[in-house]
């Protein structure tokens, strides 16, 4: 079979598998978010934690719960990392400095999983499994919980209640993430991903060297790293490492896992608002961008460009032989469009156009399909903007799913859209203005600028992948990128939950002849255009200085 045909088949199999999961998984998530029944284990947990599982919260209380949980998560993780040398299973790693511990704690709590450290050199097994992997689960659940509150805002009328954060968090973890993780962790192990508590194990090779074989609870962390769109690798090489991703099947499975929840959530949305067609329209927009990005990156990598890659005769720098160009490109598109940020090949060495696209994917705001939960709420905010724009054209107050989009709603939507670009562009600008921080670039010229732009784009959009040549383990980068991750995660959540509150309060208006139908191809086109225009206008100048300049070079 030719590589081209195999590449097509992998992508088609992926589309097929995701399509098969769309209804059952989306319906299941809707069920667990709306069911009045608690499981026995959940009731026990609520008793221990001290929450009333039957009491819904107003949006400010929901928000306070999200923020309190996240703040304590950052503190707890920070403490665990700083103290790890005194704890079990630390494998003799050196002490982590304060700025790097802060960066890592924020990174995993915000579902970013930006890594300024090298996994095998800096983190012991206890921090990996009891600190980082725990946040892989709960940060993903927090994202889904927040979008659940927003959907309830659309689905509920004349109420000030948007759900109970503790119940949402518990159910998403126990009924959704944990069971899937257990099953697929074992599938990964059966394919060669390691799962043990060993440290490095030295042996003598045939070539006469000594090689240190690493160990660790890798599979249990790898699976949730993808499923929860986290992306933080157990090892420095992330999913390129054979112990995280040993063959073509695990690679495909990892791409599937990192897409499946985000692509199924529109079904949950359709189900909860009582109109499945609304879900199809949203998933169509997400799918459109994903297909386009995967196709363009694969094309660009397969038709290599750049002096170095042309000298090699193929874009294999930073790519693994067992994946090849097609599977690596599929992974790259999926990981940068979902806020996952795991990598099975290194984007810094991609062709100028291919690497630029991975950056552009993140600049879309992680909405196609985006992170677990965060992707859907980002897309719904843009849908609100699209409906508003359409309303302006015909001169009437717009409504989406029967809810009027007035000044208050549009303020929250606008603030949401402004947050990440502000963080990205100001962060990049300041870094480029400081000579010490400019020196962090590995490459020079336009490609070096791309490394800095990629770093701030990745952090502010909670992606976590990198043009990894850049040196970011410095007090300035660790602190600045940590702030970008925190603001890029929690400010949008504030606006989304405020929006949920103001939508839930309304009495729905009946659809009239002047109502824009939001389930038709016209709306799919309108929403896609709004996404492109917002991103294009915001980031074009910055992209022109980086990947575009390099590509035209």
């Amino acid at each position, binding site marked *: 079979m030719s590589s081209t045909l*195999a590449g097509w*088949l*992998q992508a088609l*199999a992926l589309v097929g598998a995701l399509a098969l999961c769309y209804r059952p998984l989306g319906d299941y998530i809707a069920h667990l978010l709306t069911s009045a029944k608690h499981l026995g284990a959940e009731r026990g947990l609520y008793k*221990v*934690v001290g*929450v009333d599982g039957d009491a819904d919260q107003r949006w400010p209380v929901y928000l306070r*719960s999200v923020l*309190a*949980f996240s*703040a304590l998560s950052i503190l707890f993780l920070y403490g665990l990392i700083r103290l790890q040398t005194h704890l079990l299973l630390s494998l003799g790693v050196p002490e982590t400095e304060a700025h790097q511990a802060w960066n890592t704690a924020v990174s995993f709590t915000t579902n970013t999983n930006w890594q300024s450290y*090298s996994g095998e050199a800096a983190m012991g097994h206890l921090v990996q499994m*009891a600190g980082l992997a*725990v946040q892989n689960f*709960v940060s993903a659940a927090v994202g889904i919980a927040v979008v659940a509150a927003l959907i309830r805002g659309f689905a509920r009328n004349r109420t000030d209640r948007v759900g109970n954060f503790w119940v949402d968090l518990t159910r998403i973890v126990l009924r959704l993430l944990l069971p899937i993780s*257990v099953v697929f962790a074992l599938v990964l*192990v*059966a394919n*060669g*991903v390691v*799962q*043990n508590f*060993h440290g*490095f194990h030295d042996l003598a090779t*045939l070539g006469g060297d000594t*090689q*240190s*074989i*690493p160990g660790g*609870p890798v599979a*249990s962390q790898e699976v949730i790293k993808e499923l929860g769109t986290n992306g933080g690798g157990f090892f*420095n*090489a992330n999913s*390129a*490492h*054979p*112990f995280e991703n040993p063959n073509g*099947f695990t*690679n*495909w499975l990892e791409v599937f896992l990192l897409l499946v929840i985000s692509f199924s959530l529109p079904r949950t949305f359709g189900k909860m608002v009582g109109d499945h067609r609304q879900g199809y329209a949203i998933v169509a927009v997400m799918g459109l961008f994903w297909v386009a990005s995967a196709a363009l990156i694969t094309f660009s990598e397969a038709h290599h460009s750049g002096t*170095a890659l042309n*000298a*090699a*005769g*193929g874009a*294999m*720098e*930073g*790519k*693994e032989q*067992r*994946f090849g160009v097609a*599977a690596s490109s599929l992974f790259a598109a999926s990981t940068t469009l979902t806020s996952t940020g795991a990598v099975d090949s290194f984007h*810094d*060495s991609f*062709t100028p156009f291919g*690497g630029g696209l991975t950056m552009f994917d993140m600049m879309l705001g992680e909405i196609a399909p985006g992170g677990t939960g965060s992707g859907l709420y980002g897309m719904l905010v843009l849908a609100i903007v699209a409906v508003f724009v359409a309303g302006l054209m015909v001169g009437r107050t717009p409504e989406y799913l029967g809810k009027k989009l007035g000044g208050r709603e549009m303020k929250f939507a606008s603030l949401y859209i402004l947050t990440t670009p502000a963080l990205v562009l100001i962060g990049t600008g300041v870094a480029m203005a400081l000579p010490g921080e400019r020196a962090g670039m590995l*490459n020079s010229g336009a490609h070096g600028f791309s490394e800095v732009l990629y770093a701030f784009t990745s952090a502010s959009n909670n992606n976590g992948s990198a043009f990894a040549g850049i040196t970011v383990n410095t007090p300035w980068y660790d602190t600045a990128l940590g702030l970008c991750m925190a603001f890029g995660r929690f400010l949008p959540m504030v606006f989304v939950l405020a929006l949920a509150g103001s939508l839930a309060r309304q009495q729905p208006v009946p659809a009239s002849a002047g109502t824009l139908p939001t389930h038709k191809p016209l709306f799919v086109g309108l929403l896609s255009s709004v996404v492109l225009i917002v991103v294009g206008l915001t980031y074009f100048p910055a992209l022109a200085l980086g990947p575009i300049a*390099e590509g035209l*070079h």
Partner: protein
Amino acid sequence: MPTFLRTHLTALRMLLVMTAVLGLAYPLLVTGVSQLAFADKANGSIVTSDGKEIGSSLLGQNYNLPKKDPGDADEQAQPDPKFFQPRFSAGGYDPKASGASNLGPNDEKMTQAIEDRRAAIAAFDGVDPVSVPPDAVTSSGSGLDPHISVAYAKEQVDRVAQARGLSTDALNRLIDTCTEGRSLGFLGEDGVNVVLLNKAISEQK
């Protein structure tokens, strides 16, 4: 108790319960089942030869000649002609330093390095520089890639046959047995596992 404090206490208790379930019980369960059902894979797919552990079938290795002066850190390691050579690695196949070169597609250093590698490999293997495939002159993503393309393996056959006094037919047969196809026939790319191939040729009598 003020609401502010109560919310944070609830959050703390929730975090501790989650840590116990997701951070301890879950990885212990997965480890337990893995060690019972897939012990070999769970422990790193270790390969043995003559009863001695020689590596992992998933992690690539160096096959270089001993240095002339072991104390000289600047001396470039020379590839051993008796072994099939793996891809280049940014971390020298050290699993404590996995990762890629991260050099950009137009980087001058990388362009030069790739041209130098092409010339060196062509001279070493006694082939036309044009026929050296892309995977041979580039470094992998992990720095631990255990595979090379079938084309690169075939290209090395004559040199290894000569160095070992083995027939090219025998080597080609071993390459076939050590070629790992795409998963399920269409996922990923096929490649020759260099660790297994070198083990197999070193066991030929």
